C-alpha cells in the first residue's frame, strides 16, 4: 500500500515537473472544457463543484471549434477552424501537442479502438487520420468526388468497426471509411441528396443521418445494412410552403433521441420535428421560439433542450418529451451558443457568448446553480463524451 502510494506520488511529480503547482491526484470523469471562441483558449472546468480550474491559451481560431476526448478521458482533442488540432491534458492543463493539419477544419472524432483521431476538413476537403498518441498523420481520404473536384466534409461520426461516416456538402454523398488497416483506409460511397449540411449517428452507432439543405428531407443510412443504400426520410417535409432564410445551420450532432422518438431541428422553420424511429416517419412538430440550432435530449430522454439561431439566440426552450410541449422558456444571456448536460443530466451548462458567461441550470427546477465568467464562450464539452459512440 505504502509502495503504491509512493509510486503514484513519484509518477505524478514526474509528469507535472515544471508545473508551478502540483494538482492533487484526481479522476477526469467530471471534467471538461469551455471554448473561449474569440481568444483562442479553453477553460478547463469540473462539474461536481461547478468551478473553472484554469485556462489553456494558444489554440488558434476557435470559431466553430469541436472537442473530442481520448479513450482514457484525460486528453481533449481540440479542432480549430484554422485547421489546428491540439491535444490538451486536462490534468496538467497544458498543450501536449499541436499540429496545423488543414486550412479550414470543423471537427473530428476518435476511432472505436481509441488509437486514431480523425479530422474532418472543409479546406482541403477530406478527412485525415492521426495517431491519437503522437498526432502523427497516419493516412488521409481526400473528398475528391469527381476528378479535381473536392467537397467540404460535414457530420463526421465514429462508428463501430473502426469506421467513420461523414457527408460531402458539394458532392451530395455519404461516405463510410474503414480504418481497420489504418494506413490503407477503404471508402464506400453512397448518393445521399442535395447539400448535406451536418450528420449524426444514433447512440448505438447503427443509423447515420444527414440533414439536407438543398432539398427537404433527411438522408438515412442503416450501417447494419449499408448494401441497401441511403433512404430518404421526411421526404417532402414542408414542400410547397415558403422557407424562411436560415441564419445559422442547425447542428445535428448532440441531437436528441428520447423514448423511441428522435427530436430534430427543422431547417428554416420555428419547429422541432419529432420522428418515430421505428418507421422513420414524422410523428409531430413542436412550435418553438426560433430556428433551432441544437436540439439536445437530457440523458434520460425526459426533456429536450433547444437553442436558436440569430435573432432568437437569447432564448432556450425545454420540451417535455411525453407531451411534446414547451414547458419552460429561459433567457440565459445574449447569444446562447451551446448546452452540455452533466453525464446523468441533473444539470446543464449553457454558454452565452455576448454576455461572457456560462450558466449552470438545475434541470429539474430550472434554477440557476452557478454562473461562471468566460470570454465569448461557445462550445462546452464534458469528458464523458470519451465513452460515447458518435461524439
Amino acid at each position, binding site marked *: 500500500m505504502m509502495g503504491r502510494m509512493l509510486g503514484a506520488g513519484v509518477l505524478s511529480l514526474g509528469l507535472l515537473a515544471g508545473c508551478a503547482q502540483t494538482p492533487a491526484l484526481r479522476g477526469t470523469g467530471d471534467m471538461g472544457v469551455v471554448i473561449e471562441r474569440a481568444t483562442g483558449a479553453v477553460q478547463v472546468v469540473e462539474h461536481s463543484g461547478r468551478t473553472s480550474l484554469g485556462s489553456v491559451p494558444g489554440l488558434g*481560431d476557435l*470559431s466553430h471549434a469541436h472537442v473530442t476526448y481520448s479513450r482514457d478521458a484525460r486528453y481533449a482533442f481540440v479542432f480549430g477552424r484554422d485547421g489546428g488540432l491540439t491535444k490538451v491534458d486536462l490534468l496538467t492543463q497544458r498543450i501536449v501537442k499541436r499540429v496545423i493539419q488543414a486550412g479550414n477544419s470543423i471537427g473530428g472524432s476518435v476511432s472505436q479502438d481509441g488509437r486514431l483521431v480523425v479530422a474532418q476538413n472543409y479546406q482541403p476537403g477530406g478527412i485525415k487520420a492521426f495517431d491519437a498518441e503522437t498526432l502523427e498523420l497516419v493516412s488521409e481520404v481526400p473528398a475528391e468526388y469527381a476528378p479535381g473536384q473536392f467537397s*467540404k466534409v460535414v457530420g463526421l461520426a465514429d462508428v463501430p468497426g473502426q469506421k467513420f461516416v461523414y457527408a460531402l456538402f458539394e458532392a451530395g454523398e455519404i461516405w463510410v471509411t474503414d480504418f481497420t488497416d489504418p494506413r490503407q483506409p477503404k471508402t464506400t460511397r453512397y448518393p445521399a441528396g442535395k447539400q448535406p449540411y451536418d450528420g449524426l449517428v444514433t447512440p448505438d452507432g447503427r443509423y447515420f443521418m444527414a440533414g439536407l439543405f438543398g432539398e427537404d428531407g433527411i438522408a438515412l443510412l442503416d450501417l447494419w445494412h449499408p448494401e441497401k443504400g441511403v433512404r430518404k426520410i421526411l421526404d417532402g417535409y414542408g414542400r410547397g410552403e415558403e422557407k424562411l*432564410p*436560415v441564419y445559422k445551420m442547425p447542428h445535428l450532432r448532440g441531437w436528441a433521441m428520447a423514448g423511441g422518438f428522435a427530436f430534430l431541428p427543422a431547417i428554416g422553420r420555428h419547429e422541432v420535428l419529432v420522428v418515430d424511429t421505428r418507421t422513420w416517419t414524422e410523428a409531430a412538430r413542436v412550435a418553438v421560439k426560433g430556428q433551432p440550432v441544437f436540439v439536445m435530449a437530457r440523458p434520460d430522454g425526459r426533456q429536450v433542450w433547444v437553442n436558436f439561431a440569430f435573432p432568437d439566440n437569447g432564448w432556450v426552450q425545454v420540451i417535455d418529451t411525453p407531451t411534446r410541449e414547451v414547458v419552460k422558456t429561459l433567457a440565459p444571456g445574449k447569444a446562447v451558443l451551446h448546452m452540455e448536460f452533466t453525464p446523468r443530466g441533473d444539470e446543464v451548462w449553457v454558454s452565452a457568448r455576448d454576455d461572457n458567461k456560462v450558466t449552470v441550470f438545475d434541470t429539474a427546477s430550472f434554477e440557476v446553480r452557478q454562473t461562471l465568467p468566460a470570454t465569448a464562450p461557445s462550445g462546452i464539452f464534458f469528458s464523458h463524451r470519451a465513452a460515447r459512440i458518435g461524439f
Partner: protein
Amino acid sequence: MAVDRSLWVHVVVLLGVAAVAATAHAEPATARQQELVNMVRQDCGSCHGLTLQGGLGPALLPAVLKDKPAESLVATVMMGRPGTAMPGWAPFMSEQEAEWIVARLMQGFPPVAQQLESSK
C-alpha cells in the same frame, strides 16, 4: 456653466463628424458600427468564419472580393443568393449599412473590440 459648454462642444463635434460622414458615404453611428462589426464576425462568421477565411460560405477577404462589383455584393448581403446557403440580411440592416459592411470587407474587416484587447 462649464457643463453646458462642454456639452455644446460635444454636440458641435458630433455634428461635424456626422456632416463629414454624410458627404462621404453615410456612415452608421459609432455604436451601430460596433454592432455591425460584431454581427459580421459572429453571425456571418458562423458560415464565413470568425476570421472570414471561409467555412460553409466562401472567404470574405479583400483578395477574394477585390474584382467583384460592390453593388452586387451588397445585393447578395441584402437579398441572399437563392439556391445557396446565403440568406438575405435585409430584415436586420439598411442598404447603407450593407454598403458600409461590403466596403469594410473589401478593405480588410476590423476585429471586434474583445479581439483587439487580447491580440498580442
